[in-house]
């Protein structure tokens, strides 16, 4: 009998990572490579009046917008990011040009002597006119509000979160085939390739993108690397030398994309039976100076509005605002963490306002199989949340602790969040935009090569995808080879984002492996391909945002227990428990690792990680100012994975990565709320916020 796919195997990349021989971008040595460093705007908004460049020694160059052979745009969803600022700057840190040359120290000193003068303009720092607006509705909102027994409304607020991958962004590249070959720390080789093609006006065969080992990404290396790659491509094309561009921490922290700060208005109609009959919600995201992916982030935020609850009537609006601040973008969860924080707090706050037990109140609204989703699609697959909640409350002793801690002056609290996450691209994205293609190639030694663009950035995709292919083919995993993606060889299986790698790419690979198995010819070269097809029952109207926003959902429950220092208001996380339904774990240890890490980021988002800008200038500039959890800040976790196989996923697998983050912030905020017996409406809940809540009351 074959082993259960969930049984843990050794992570295939672990050995070389542990001994330090895995090569990340900055570890790659190319003899004679030049260095590039960007010159950036020191102003939030204005026109560039003059640029004075010190006299450049031989072999030192300036590279700016005048060197761009194609379009001065980084291709994304919204094409509003210039590669280099042309004549106006829109945020502090916006790249204007590169200084490139053989000696790093010399390049840095030249950079310090570039003088730019501006005609300063008043920057937009608050929300004015929205740049993008989306809306959808469900049911009859007017009727529900008209018939309400009570209308309850609260506002919620979240701030920036920085991905804080430990490896800063970077690329190295060189001229190749009348074009460029770039190697970088990236999640999406084809995003980079397509962006470079457009900026350089290159043909397909002139751009080659390869992934180096990636030292953490979390969405931060989804769209941002395209900007760096376009700049470097312009420089390589101009100078015809290998060039390296690696950010230092401060540069990375100040200029790269972050999680969108959000303001969320929630308004609920509650009837006499204490049922929430309707929710009106309005979300405002700060997009920063360029829109980029913000509209898609906004849509994920809005789609999470009713989270794991069924609310029959909804009116949901969302806006992205442009401000003269660093552009915001992808970060694990992609808009959902903001909304899930708001709705989890809101549902509690409604219960409290009505004098009800929050747990019973939430239970009454919990989603069941067959219910309509927020966008009037259907939850088709079995939902096992009741069992998951039972498991979570039992192992954490939740109900008993609620009784004990819900007393004035306990300074102890326990919080629980329930949540879901849609797997894969929103709506018809997989079918209409991504059109994933995967390839398996067998050589005459019967070694099978996985050819996909999926990146292992620490989430274990190398191990799990190889495992799926090996298991379907019933061969040893040693005979399945999966090198870092190189666009010269791999088809576009889509970006490594949206918790889609296992469910979508892994699903296609499982089908391809089955096909190969069926036509297996010993000692002969063979190639098979598979292309994504949307399940026919999934219907989505992008214009009205109506229908099935996702083919499948993963589910989770987080419980967090805290104790607060009565003098310093420091929050001490005592224990964390979680239960997940991600269909089927392809590797137990890898999923548990995602669970631990996602939760740490979620809790960091909720109570620890402060990032702010002042007049458009990011205030936290390094790892000393921007606090992420250390081993001493985190506590023991107990994570349970409950099987609930999804028929179209490989071995039943759904998405994992983002799910494990989205519930952390509300769980810890609810625990703190219980401990201090004060309502909380914004994160992060730092000791300063706790002190304000206590003294204001």
């Amino acid at each position: 009998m074959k082993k259960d796919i969930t049984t843990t195997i050794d992570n295939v990349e672990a050995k070389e990572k542990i001994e330090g021989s895995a090569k990340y971008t900055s570890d790659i040595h190319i003899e004679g490579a030049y260095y590039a460093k960007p010159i950036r705007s020191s102003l939030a908004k204005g026109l560039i009046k003059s640029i004075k460049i010190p006299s450049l020694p031989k072999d030192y160059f300036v590279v700016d917008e005048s060197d761009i052979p194609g379009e001065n745009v980084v291709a994304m969803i919204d094409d509003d990011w210039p590669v280099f600022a042309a004549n106006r700057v829109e945020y502090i840190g916006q790249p204007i040009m590169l200084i490139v040359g053989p000696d790093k120290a010399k390049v840095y000193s030249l950079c310090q002597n570039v003088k730019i003068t501006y005609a300063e303009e008043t920057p937009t720092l608050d929300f004015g006119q929205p740049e993008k607006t989306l809306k959808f509705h469900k049911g009859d909102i007017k009727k529900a509000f008209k018939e309400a027994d009570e209308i309850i409304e609260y506002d919620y607020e979240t701030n920036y979160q920085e991905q804080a991958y430990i490896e800063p962004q970077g690329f190295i590249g060189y001229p190749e085939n009348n074009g460029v070959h770039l190697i970088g720390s990236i999640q999406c080789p084809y995003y980079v390739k397509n962006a470079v093609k457009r900026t350089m006006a290159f043909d397909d065969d002139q751009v080659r993108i390869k992934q180096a080992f990636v030292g953490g990404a979390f969405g931060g290396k989804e769209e941002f690397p395209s900007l760096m790659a376009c700049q470097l491509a312009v420089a390589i094309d101009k100078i015809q030398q290998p060039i390296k561009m690696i950010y230092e921490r401060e540069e990375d922290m100040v200029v790269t994309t972050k999680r969108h700060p959000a303001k969320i208005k929630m308004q609920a109609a509650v009837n006499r039976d204490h049922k929430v009959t309707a929710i009106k919600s309005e979300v405002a995201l700060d997009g920063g100076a360029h829109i980029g992916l913000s509209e898609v982030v906004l849509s994920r935020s809005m789609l999470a509005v009713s989270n794991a609850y069924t609310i029959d009537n909804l009116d949901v609006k969302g806006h992205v605002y442009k401000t003269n601040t660093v552009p915001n973008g992808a970060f694990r969860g992609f808009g959902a963490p903001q909304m899930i924080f708001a709705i989890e707090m809101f549902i509690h706050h409604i219960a409290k306002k009505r004098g009800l037990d929050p747990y019973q109140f939430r239970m009454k609204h919990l989603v069941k199989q067959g219910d309509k989703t927020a966008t009037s699609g259907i939850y088709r697959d079995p939902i096992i949340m009741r069992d998951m909640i039972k498991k979570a409350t039992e192992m954490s002793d939740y109900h008993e602790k609620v009784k004990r801690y819900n007393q004035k002056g306990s300074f102890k609290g326990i919080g629980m969040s329930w949540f879901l996450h849609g797997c894969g691209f929103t709506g018809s994205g997989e079918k209409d935009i991504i059109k994933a293609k995967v390839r398996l190639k067998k050589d005459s030694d019967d070694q099978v090569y996985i050819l996909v663009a999926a990146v292992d950035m620490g989430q274990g995709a190398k191990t799990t995808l190889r495992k799926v292919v090996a298991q379907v083919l019933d061969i040893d995993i040693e005979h399945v080879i999966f090198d870092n993606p190189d666009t010269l060889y791999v088809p576009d299986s889509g970006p490594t984002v949206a918790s889609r790698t296992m469910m979508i790419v892994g699903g296609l690979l499982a089908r391809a492996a089955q096909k190969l198995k069926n036509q297996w010819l010993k000692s002969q070269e063979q190639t098979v391909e598979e292309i994504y097809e949307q399940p026919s029952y999934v219907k989505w109207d992008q214009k009205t945002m109506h229908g099935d926003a996702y083919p499948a959902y993963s589910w989770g429950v987080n419980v967090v227990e805290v104790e607060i220092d009565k003098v310093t208001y420091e929050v001490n996380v005592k224990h964390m428990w979680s239960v997940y339904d991600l269909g089927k774990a392809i590797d137990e240890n890898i999923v548990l690792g995602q669970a631990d890490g996602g939760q740490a980021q979620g809790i960091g988002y909720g109570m620890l990680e402060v990032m702010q800008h002042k007049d458009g200038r990011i205030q936290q500039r390094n790892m000393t100012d921007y606090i992420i959890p250390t081993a001493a800040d985190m506590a023991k976790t107990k994570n349970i994975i409950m099987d609930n196989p999804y028929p179209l996923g490989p071995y039943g697998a759904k998405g994992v990565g983002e799910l494990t983050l989205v519930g952390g912030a509300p769980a810890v905020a609810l625990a703190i709320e219980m401990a201090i017996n004060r309502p909380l409406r914004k994160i992060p809940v730092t000791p300063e916020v706790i002190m304000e809540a206590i003294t204001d009351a």
Partner: protein
Amino acid sequence: MPKITFTLNGQKEALNTRLDLRLLDLLRTHYHLTGSKEGCGEGECGACSVFINGKLINSCLVPLGSINGADIMTIEGYKHTERFKVLQKAFIKEGGSQCGICTPGMMMASEYLLAHNPNPTEHDIRHGLSGNLCRCTGYNMIIKAIKRAAKEGKGLW
């Protein structure tokens, strides 16, 4: 330029060099020892941890002027030891490495911890590792790996 001598992973080295350069850069660019990583460049993240005269040090904060006569060990030297092998196996079995960028530094910190405290409690481990940041794991699997190494490598530390 002044001359400095030191021992690197057991080898005697002599260099004519500026003294204000960082040890981390010397290791990575001159010796191509890229197992020590630069995560923050200011001594906060621990990814560049090395041993200098047996002490656990962030090499990004060390000017070459201070290493004359010193005995330096990086992950490339440490990986040949029995203790490393036990720790490596434990990290693999417990899933203690995800993206891996912090891992060589974590290995150095783990070695230092176990060398000074062969039977650490959970609290000891959490505080022993609090100078090394990891954004992927939430630390629990790293802590389990160190506990496993302490058990399986009994007598080695």
